[in-house]
C-alpha cells in the first residue's frame, strides 16, 4: 500500500473550521472580529425567495447523513403558514462522528448565523436547538452563544432592524441515538418518547407541534453564511458533480492523527487517511474503512481511491453518511467489529417495529456465537439471511442501517468469519476464547 500520496487539495482553504483554533473561538467577539454576522446582515436585505435560490444554486446537501438538497427542502416549507419552526439537529450520535460537537463547542455563532438566515428564508419565527444530552460543554456554549446573540440583536425582535423576529432556545436530549432522526427528534422536543413518526406528513408539512418545520444538521447550517458571503458559484465550484462544498471529515481509529479535517467533497479516502490523518499507526497495513459513520457499509483497503462524495460512495457500495471515517488496521478482527457495531444499534433501537426491535438482538446473538467459535459455517449465511431480511422492511432508516456492519463485514471478510467457526479462535487478533458462559468479555490476548 502506498503510504504517502500527494494532496490534490493543497490549495483548499477551510471555511467551516477556520476559526476553531483561535483562542476564545466560541466567543461572539472573536466571531464578529472575523467578519461574523456580515452574511446575516446581507441576507436580511434580500428577499427570502432570493436566499432560497442562492442555496439551491449552491447545490448544498444536508450534512446530517441523508444528503437531501437543502434548497429543495426550503421550498417545501409552505409559504402561507402563519407560524413555522426551525429545528436545529445537534444530536450527533452516529459512532465515529464528532464534527458537530466541535462546531458547537468552538464556533457556535457560525451555526446561529446560518440558522438565522435559514429561518428568515423560510419564514420561521422560532428555532429549537436539540442537543445530545451528553454534550455538557456544547450545551453551555450554545446557551451562552444564544444569550450573546440576543444581546447583540442577532436574535429576538426586529433583528438588525429588518422587521424579522427569531426566538431561539436549547433543548437537551436524554441520550438516545434515534433522537437524531428528525421525526424522533421532534417527538422528543415535544416531550414524548423518541420514536420516529409516520411519514408523510413530512416535517415541512406538519412538524414540531404540528407546524411546518425545517430540520437541519448544524454543519449544513454552518455552510450557509459562507454561501451568502462568497456566493453560490464559489460553493458549487468545490466538490464533485453531485456533492458540493466543503465537508468536515471526522477521522478516527488506527491513524496517527485522528481528528476533524475540513476538505472538499470528492477528496479520496486515501488522501484523508494518508495525507491528512498521518497514515496508519505504527506503520501497519490498512485493512478496512467505514467511510461515513457506523451505519454505512464497511469498505476494504482496496477501495480507498474512491472520492468521498454521495454518488461515488454509493456506487462503491457504501454511503457518505456523516463523513465519519473509521480506519481499521490489519490487527482488527472484523467479526468483532460487526458484533460490536450491531450491539450499538440493537441497544439504540427505539423498539417500535418488530424487525429492528427483535431482529437486531437476534443478529447480535448470531454474530456473538460465530465470534466465539460456537457457530457452524451455515450460521454465517443465516446472519446474511437475517440481515437481508431486516434491511428495507423497518419503520425508519435506522433499522435498515443496522444490518450494514454485519452484511458488509461478511461480504468483504467472509474468510474471517469462517476462521472463527472452524478454528474456534481469532486468527487476526490472535485472541483465544475463554468462552465465559455469560458471553461477556470472552476475549483475552
Amino acid at each position, binding site marked *: 500500500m502506498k503510504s504517502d500520496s500527494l494532496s490534490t487539495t493543497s490549495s483548499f482553504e477551510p471555511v467551516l473550521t477556520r476559526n476553531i483554533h483561535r483562542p476564545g473561538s466560541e466567543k461572539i467577539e472573536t466571531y464578529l472580529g472575523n467578519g461574523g454576522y456580515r452574511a446575516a446582515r446581507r441576507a436580511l436585505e434580500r428577499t427570502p425567495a432570493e436566499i432560497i435560490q442562492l442555496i439551491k444554486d449552491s447545490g448544498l446537501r444536508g450534512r446530517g447523513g441523508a444528503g437531501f438538497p437543502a434548497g429543495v427542502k426550503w421550498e417545501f416549507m409552505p409559504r402561507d403558514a402563519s407560524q413555522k419552526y426551525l429545528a436545529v439537529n445537534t444530536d450527533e450520535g452516529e459512532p465515529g462522528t464528532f464534527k458537530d460537537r466541535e462546531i458547537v463547542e468552538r464556533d457556535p455563532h457560525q451555526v446561529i448565523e446560518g440558522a438565522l438566515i435559514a429561518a428568515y428564508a423560510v419564514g420561521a419565527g422560532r428555532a429549537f436547538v436539540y442537543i445530545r444530552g451528553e454534550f455538557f460543554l456544547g450545551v453551555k456554549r450554545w446557551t451562552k452563544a444564544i444569550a450573546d446573540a440576543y444581546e447583540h440583536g442577532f436574535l429576538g425582535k426586529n433583528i438588525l432592524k429588518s422587521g424579522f423576529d427569531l426566538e431561539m432556545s436549547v433543548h437537551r436530549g436524554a441520550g*438516545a441515538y*434515534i433522537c437524531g432522526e428528525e421525526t424522533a427528534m421532534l417527538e422528543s422536543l415535544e416531550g414524548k*418518547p*423518541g420514536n420516529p413518526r*409516520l411519514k408523510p406528513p413530512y416535517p415541512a408539512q406538519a412538524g414540531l407541534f404540528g407546524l411546518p418545520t425545517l430540520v437541519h444538521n448544524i454543519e449544513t447550517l454552518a455552510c450557509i453564511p459562507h454561501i451568502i458571503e462568497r456566493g453560490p458559484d464559489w460553493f458549487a465550484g468545490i466538490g464533485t458533480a453531485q456533492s458540493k462544498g466543503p465537508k468536515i471529515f471526522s477521522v478516527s481509529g488506527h491513524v496517527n492523527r485522528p481528528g476533524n479535517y475540513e476538505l472538499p467533497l470528492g477528496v479520496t479516502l486515501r488522501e484523508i487517511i494518508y495525507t491528512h490523518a498521518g497514515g496508519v499507526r505504527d506503520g501497519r497495513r490498512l485493512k478496512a474503512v467505514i467511510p461515513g459513520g457506523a451505519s454505512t457499509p464497511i469498505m476494504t483497503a482496496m477501495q480507498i481511491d474512491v472520492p468521498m462524495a454521495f454518488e461515488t460512495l454509493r456506487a462503491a457500495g457504501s454511503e457518505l453518511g456523516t463523513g465519519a471515517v473509521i480506519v481499521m488496521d490489519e490487527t482488527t478482527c472484523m467479526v468483532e467489529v460487526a458484533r460490536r457495531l450491531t450491539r450499538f444499534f*440493537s*441497544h*439504540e*433501537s*427505539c*423498539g*417500535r*417495529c*418488530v*424487525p429492528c*426491535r*427483535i*431482529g*437486531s*438482538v*437476534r443478529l447480535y*446473538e448470531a454474530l456473538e456465537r460465530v465470534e466465539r467459535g460456537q457457530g457452524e459455517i451455515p450460521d454465517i449465511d443465516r446472519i446474511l439471511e*437475517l440481515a437481508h*431480511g*431486516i434491511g*428495507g*422492511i*423497518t*419503520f425508519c432508516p435506522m433499522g435498515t442501517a443496522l444490518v450494514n456492519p454485519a452484511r458488509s463485514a461478511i461480504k468483504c471478510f467472509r474468510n474471517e468469519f469462517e476462521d472463527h467457526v472452524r478454528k474456534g479462535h481469532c486468527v487476526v487478533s490472535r485472541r483465544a476464547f475463554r468462552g465465559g458462559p455469560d458471553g461477556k468479555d470472552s476475549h483475552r490476548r
Partner: protein
Amino acid sequence: MAAVSLKIDGKTVETAPGRSVMQAARDAGIGIPALCDHPALPPEGACRICLVEIEGQRAPQPACTFQVSAGLVVQTRSPHVVAARKLVLELLLSDHPLDCLTCESTGSCLLQDLAYEYDVKGDRWRGRHHDYPVDSSNPFIQVDRNKCIVCRRCVRACNSINGVEAISIFHRGFNASIGFGADGPMQDSPCEFCGSCVAVCPTGALRPKLAIGKGRPWQVKKVDTICSYCGVGCKLTLHVRDNRIIGADGAWDGPVNRGWTCVKGRFGHDYVRHPDRLTKPRVRHYLLHGGKKRRDGTGWDWVETDWDTALEVAARGLCQIRGKYGADSIGVLCSAKCLNEENYLMNKLARQVIGTNNIDHCARL
C-alpha cells in the same frame, strides 16, 4: 371527491382518496394480514406484517400506512412479501412463550392464526427472551407482558377510544413493553377499566380475568344484546357457554357505542348468576299479612311474591300517603338504568297520576 382506482392482486379496486391500501383491500374483500393495525384505531405501521409490494417502490411498503393513489399496482402475496412476513413472525415467536395449549387466547389470537397460516414455527431465531411476572393484581384484567408484541393497539385504544391515556410504552428496543400510569400497577394508573385495551389486544397479553379458563372461542355461543346497566343502550356481544355468560365485548357495529363499553358492561356480568341476585319481587311480611310495622319482629321480613301483588301493595301505599298528606308529599327519582321510554312513563305517573312535579333523575344530580 372522485374515487381512486387501483389494482390489487390484479383486481381493479375503487376507493376513496385518503384511504390506506389496507382499507381499500379490506373493502374489496382482499385480506392483508395485520397485527398492529385495527379498523377502529389510527394507523401505526409498527409490526410490518402487512407489507405489500407496490410497483415503483424500492422496498415493500406497509399496507396499513400507505395511502392509495390512482393507478397504484399492489401485490399482496408476492414471494418477497411472504418471506418478509415470515421473518416478522419468526422474530415475534422467538420472544414469545408459545404456551398456546393453555393460553387464554388460543383460538382468538392473531399471532397464532398467522403463524399457522404462514407455517412459522418458533424455533428459528431463538435467543434471549423475556420473563416478566404476570400481573393479575386488579379484579378485571390480567397483564402478561411476555405475550405482548408491542403493537400499541392498547395504547391507541386507551388514548383515542376511552381518552384516558393510562397506557404507554416504557423502555426501548428489545425491552420496550407496555406500562400503566407511571409504570405501576394498572389500578394505580388513571385506568378506568373500560377494557378497550383488552378488546383490541391481538394476543394473550391483556385478558379479562373473569373469562380465564371458562371456555374456548369454539365452545362459546355469541349472543348480541343491549347492555342492561344503563339507558345509553350499548350493544354488547355476550360470550355464553352452557347458558352462562363468561364474557362480553362491546359490539363494533353498536350504533351508540361502536365497540366501547364501560367497566360494568364489559366486566360486570357475574351478577346474572349471582346467588344474591333477586329474581322475584319481595314485599315486607306485614304489608301482605298484616301485623305491626316493627323492625324487630317477623313482620319486617321479606316475602317473595308475584309482580301483580307487589305492584298492588306499592300502589296502595302511595294512594294512602297521597290521601293523608297530599300529592306533593311524594317524590319520584328516576334511574339512568331505565330507558327513555320508561323515564317518560315515570314522568306521566308522577305528574298525571300522582299529581306532583316532584320528579328528578339520578343522572342530573
